[in-house]
């Protein structure tokens, strides 16, 4: 079964189109990494699938249903999103923040019930952040906050989880923690779409990688066929050294000594 199907997508922020005739199928239960240089269209792709942007042409299907006919609440029950920036203008408690993930299930005048509180607690527990429950969101560390925002997405109980640079501000311990959580979620059947600048992290954990460049899918395959010296060179314009991870054999990318340039 397909979790996400994009066909014939056209989209641009101004008269110049970023995506044109763009197609992508993501299978249910896949762990897809999306990589590419700045401006490649990774975040735009995420926003199109999350319904934050509307394509000017083409169709997007989520779990076999057309995105155009779904309302916001229906989309929120199907797709959980972790955005790159998560500012909070006011200082809510962590459990209040995660409870926001229950919004698509609650009527306007309905207060959260036992089931909602259960979902909040189990989501926090899953990301190892239950102990933060009563803390204020602006008083915890960046790594903790990222887990809390992830827990909020989990409280939506979506089949699909999309993350935009979820690990980029984090130290390696927190990167590993988030990656492990995503792998566990994927094993439990969630479709994970992981946008990242971290080629090594993507190569290590994703089952398939989409390499984007200026709105074009350059490659979309298992990490071994995408993280190659040739493709990285042609897209990023650097001379990479590609090695194998000693444990998993997955490709890993290093920069050469003369990383600053080849003048």
């Amino acid at each position, binding site marked *: 079964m397909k979790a996400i199907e994009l066909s014939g997508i056209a989209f641009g922020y101004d008269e110049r189109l970023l995506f044109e005739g763009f197609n992508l199928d993501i299978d249910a239960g896949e762990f897809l990494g999306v990589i590419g240089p700045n401006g490649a269209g990774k975040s735009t792709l995420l926003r199109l699938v999350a319904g*934050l942007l509307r394509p000017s042409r083409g169709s997007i299907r989520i779990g076999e249903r057309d995105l155009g006919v779904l309302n916001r609440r229906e989309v929120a029950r199907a797709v959980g999103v972790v955005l790159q920036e998560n500012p*909070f*203008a*006011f200082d809510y408690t962590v459990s209040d923040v995660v409870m926001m993930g229950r919004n698509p299930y609650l009527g306007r005048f309905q207060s959260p019930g036992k089931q909602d509180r259960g979902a909040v607690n189990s989501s926090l527990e899953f990301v190892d952040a239950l102990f933060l429950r009563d803390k204020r969101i602006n008083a915890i560390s960046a790594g903790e906050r990222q887990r809390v925002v992830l827990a909020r997405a989990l409280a939506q109980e979506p089949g699909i989880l999309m993350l935009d640079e979820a690990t980029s501000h984090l130290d390696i311990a927190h990167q590993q923690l988030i990656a492990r959580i995503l792998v566990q979620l994927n094993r439990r059947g969630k479709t994970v779409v992981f946008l990242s600048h971290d080629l090594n992290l993507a190569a290590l954990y994703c089952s398939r990688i989409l390499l984007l460049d200026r709105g074009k899918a350059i490659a979309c395959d298992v990490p071994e066929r995408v993280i190659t010296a040739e493709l990285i060179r042609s897209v990023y314009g650097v001379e990479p050294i590609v090695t194998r991870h000693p444990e998993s054999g997955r490709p890993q990318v290093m920069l050469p000594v003369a990383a600053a340039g080849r003048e």
Partner: protein
Amino acid sequence: MQRRLLPGWVGLILLLVSAAALSVAVGPGGFTNFRAVMDLRLLRLALGIIAGGVLAVVGASLQGLLQNPLADPFTMGVASGAALGASLTLVLGRTAGAFAPVGGFAGALVTMLVVYALARVRGRVTVTGLVLAGVIMSFLFSSLVILVMILGRRTLGEAVYMMMGHLGAIFTGTTVWLFGGVAVLAVVGCAWLFSMSRSLDIMSSGEEAAETLGVDTQRVTKTVFVISSVLVGVVVSFTGAISFVGLVVPHLVRMLFGPEHRRVLPGSFVAGAGILLLSDVLARNIVPGGLPLSIVTALVGVPFFIYLLRSRL
């Protein structure tokens, strides 16, 4: 946080009750004609409660909606826009019927839309952009209020009260009924904003994030803008533009109850009403003949706001 809820509510209600008692008991004129004085003061009390409550609830809603701790009907220029609308109906001689409140509403809504459009750069409303646009429009409308009043052969005193607020509206037989209608409208509008509490909570983590959580942010924005414009417009047509109540009261209530709108909005209504009544008691008793309300609200509000700026924003 839970344990501070009850004392917080007790405090706010005590504030309102004592402010109301002072408002009725203290004032120039003594009690020689008890009936007439009480009629005036009770109407003034009702106007103060509605105006203070509405301004604070609208301020709290706009702050949540725009993720902007500086948003309020006054800083956004909406109150001045409403004052201009009301002034226009006044000098055009349309004092009868519902013309002034409708003029106030029209002025408020136009200002809200203009300020929002000016502040929205590349699809994002920035905190500074909104306040800058609001301050500029506020200057413009204040000048226009004076211009309109002079052209309409009104006194500068009237213009000052329109720009700086007062609770001394003169009620005639028909305007009392009109005010009754405004009071009902105010309660309905505040209840409507209250019903959007959860959406407002979610929007304080950003528009895009709110959409991924199932909030129709465009609909919420439009609804809050229209309700706020109606509420501020009709209130300002009776009181003129009053500063700082909508800005400061929600922050005060958040310090008591935390940021959740289902507590902040009702708390702001009660606290706003109480603080406006106290300000009015001061405004009409410290100087013979009385002062415009914004003088008192600014003298009280600015120090508190500076404290907020230094410690919390």
